[in-house]
């Protein structure tokens, strides 16, 4: 069993475990940490997939910024253990089966749908690790407009966040 397989399985197990913890734990902060775990393991998978830049961004932005923000808010609101209320019968009874169906469907999709097949047996061969230069070129030439758009989006988001979170005098 070669190294990539090992890494993959380790990360996969970690990620799934993290997701499960996220679901099971009733302490928001634990969920957050679990999610961070998932993200980090995903980042490693990205490395494995030859996308170091994405991996780094994943960690910096997701784990380093977004999740910190989550933790920060959790701490700020001192969000305690989540209480057990089940008013939504629908969610209670339909949720799990539905999600499972979705999962199966997706799996079926991936394996039996033509596209899925095409990719599943697709070239697993290690493509040269996407160098940051190529990526940046792609980003700033082909996808320039979306890039600008997102920047504006972020600006708007900042303003919105400020407006929302400001205490009304």
């Amino acid at each position, binding site marked *: 069993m070669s190294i990539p397989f090992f890494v993959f399985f380790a990360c996969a197990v970690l990620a799934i475990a993290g997701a499960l913890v996220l679901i099971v734990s009733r302490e928001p902060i634990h969920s957050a940490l679990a999610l961070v775990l998932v993200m980090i393991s995903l980042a490693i998978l990205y490395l494995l997939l030859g996308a170091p830049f994405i991996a780094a961004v994943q960690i910096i932005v997701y784990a380093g910024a977004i999740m910190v923000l989550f933790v920060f808010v959790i701490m700020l609101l001192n969000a305690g253990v989540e209480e057990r209320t089940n008013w*939504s019968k*629908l969610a209670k009874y339909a949720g799990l089966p539905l999600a499972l169906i979705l999962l199966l*469907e997706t799996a079926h999709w991936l394996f039996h749908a033509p596209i899925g097949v095409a990719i599943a047996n697709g070239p697993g061969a290690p493509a040269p690790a996407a160098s940051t230069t190529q990526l940046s070129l792609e980003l700033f030439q082909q996808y320039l407009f979306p890039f600008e758009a997102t920047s504006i989006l972020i600006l708007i988001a900042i303003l919105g966040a400020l407006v929302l979170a400001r205490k009304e005098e």
Partner: protein
Amino acid sequence: MPILSHLWIILALPLAGAAINGLFGKRWPQSAVNSVAVGSVSLAFLAVLELVREFSHLAQDQIPYVGNYFTWITAGSFRVDFSLQVDQLTIVMLLTVSFVGMLIHIYSTGYMAHEGGYYRFFCYLNLFMFFMLTLVMAANLIVMFVGWEGVGLCSYLLIGFWFLKKSAADAGKKAFITTRIGDLGFMIGLLLVFWTFNSESFGEIFLQAGHMRAESATHVGVLTAICLLLFAGAVGKSAQLPLYVWLPDAMEGPTPVSALIHAATMVTAGVYMVARMHPLFSRAPIAMFAVAVVGAVTAFYSATIGLVQTDIKKVLAYSTVSQLGYMFLACGVGAYAAGIFHLMTHAFFKGLLFLAAGSVIHAMGGEQDMMKMGGLRKKIPITYWTMLIATLAIAGIPGFAGFFSKDEILEAAGAGPHANLWLWLLGVIGAGLTSFYMFRLVFLTFFGRPRFDEHKVHVHESPKNMTVSLMILAFCSIFGGWFAAPHLVGGTEYFEHFLHPVFSSYAVQAATEQAGSLAGNPGAEGGMASSPAMELLHALTGWPVIVGILGLLVAWWFYIKKPEAPKLLAQKIHGLYLLLLNKYYVDEIYAALIVRPLLWISTNVLWHGVDQGLIDGIVNGSARVARESGGKVRELQSGNTRSYAAWVVIGAVGFTVLLLGILGMVVH
């Protein structure tokens, strides 16, 4: 050629005035509103003068001069340009409309000085000028129709100007609805025109019509239909039988309005339209005859009603109707030029009459009943003299404007190619009646002893800006007629010559002959009566004068010599008197025959049946359905985010299933 190449200026000026006054006038002092309103109209008048100057330089083949501004409507093959045109006819109308309009504007500044809604009044008035000019300058039927409806709207607004007074509001509505009946015909006529000629522009229509064979009484075709339909519109607009009923009521409006819209300009639109469409009419003898008959009958009929009315403005209203009848008579017998000419002179003296009457009313402090007047001769001399002149003019006393025009009409009616003795007779009698009731009006108003309390009503002459326009119009009513001085009095048919190209260009043979016989008759030059035709002319020319003077004398005898005579006569022929007094009960008849059934239908069938039963049923039904279903569906709106989440998931699952299914189909 600044104006000629920019005809729209003439329209833009009044429109701008209306816009400015309408938007800002409310806060402005009267002086400002005046200057805007009068200024805009006067400028328009000046523009028209300049236009005339430029027009005189135009070569014959450039007439009619058409200016295309922009394509207004295009739907399939239906294409309407916003285009204006100028030819002699237009010039005459333009001069008349803008000139009289200007004077009446000036007059109004004095007359309306003490009224509320001052700016509103002038806004409407300017708007009216705009539409009227549009109507006159239109180069195709659609643009003309715009003006047509526009003036209708303005007249509605202005009749109902004192909308707090119920009678005024009702009169406005009545005018609008009655004319609308005619307009329906007009509209159908438009469609028919397009269906026939596949175009609405005059040039195109006339060109094609020129190639069509003239229809005869036996062989009636589309032309006749078109003409009759258009004439229906004219009947509505120009208050002819049977749709004249709105005009007398329209006197509820301010007097200047009556003068401008319901005497001088708008009501003559019908005549103008008929004259404008003469190439079609000339080819539809039936229609022509119908026009003539309606005109003559109306002329006589409303004259009889005018005999006994006591409201000064009502009398004038009926006389207007009858004068319009004369114009139609003229058109009907093919003497378009005469008709237009009478239109012009009538604009002068009838406008003058109304203004003078307004001045009288003004002086009497709002009193309109002639029975409560009398002996005003000394107190308001200017009004008196001007009114007298106008009366002489309308009565057709030789030398005054009315004489020439009416004379020409009767001449054509009696001796023209479409001459018809009975029509002529009607016309002559009508002329006599006209002069009778007009002098009756004068005598009742200005002579005899005052029949009102001198202490209550202190009579006073109107302010300058009113009297000035009175005098100017008086001048026109005297000399306006000499344009057309017929050869028999040694004149040179100038008016005929001027309009000749318009009416000869597309005319059928008969029409040209007639025009020739009227205009270019070599023997007629110099006025020496040589040919038998001339003898006949002389004989005919006499009659209107004679009956006119007769009417004068009778009126004098009744109302000066023996003031009690009318009563006696009234008692003698009481039935007839009542009949006339109540205007032949036409309003009542209409009410019984049309209005009430209509009301019943609309109440029981349309309102209770269709509206409440059907439409409300549908509306409420749909609303109820929506409410019920909403009540059911809103159960989903549990307000519980998690169940929403579940729904989202369900959606995702369903979508994926769908996608898989589709892909499966694609694959297999």
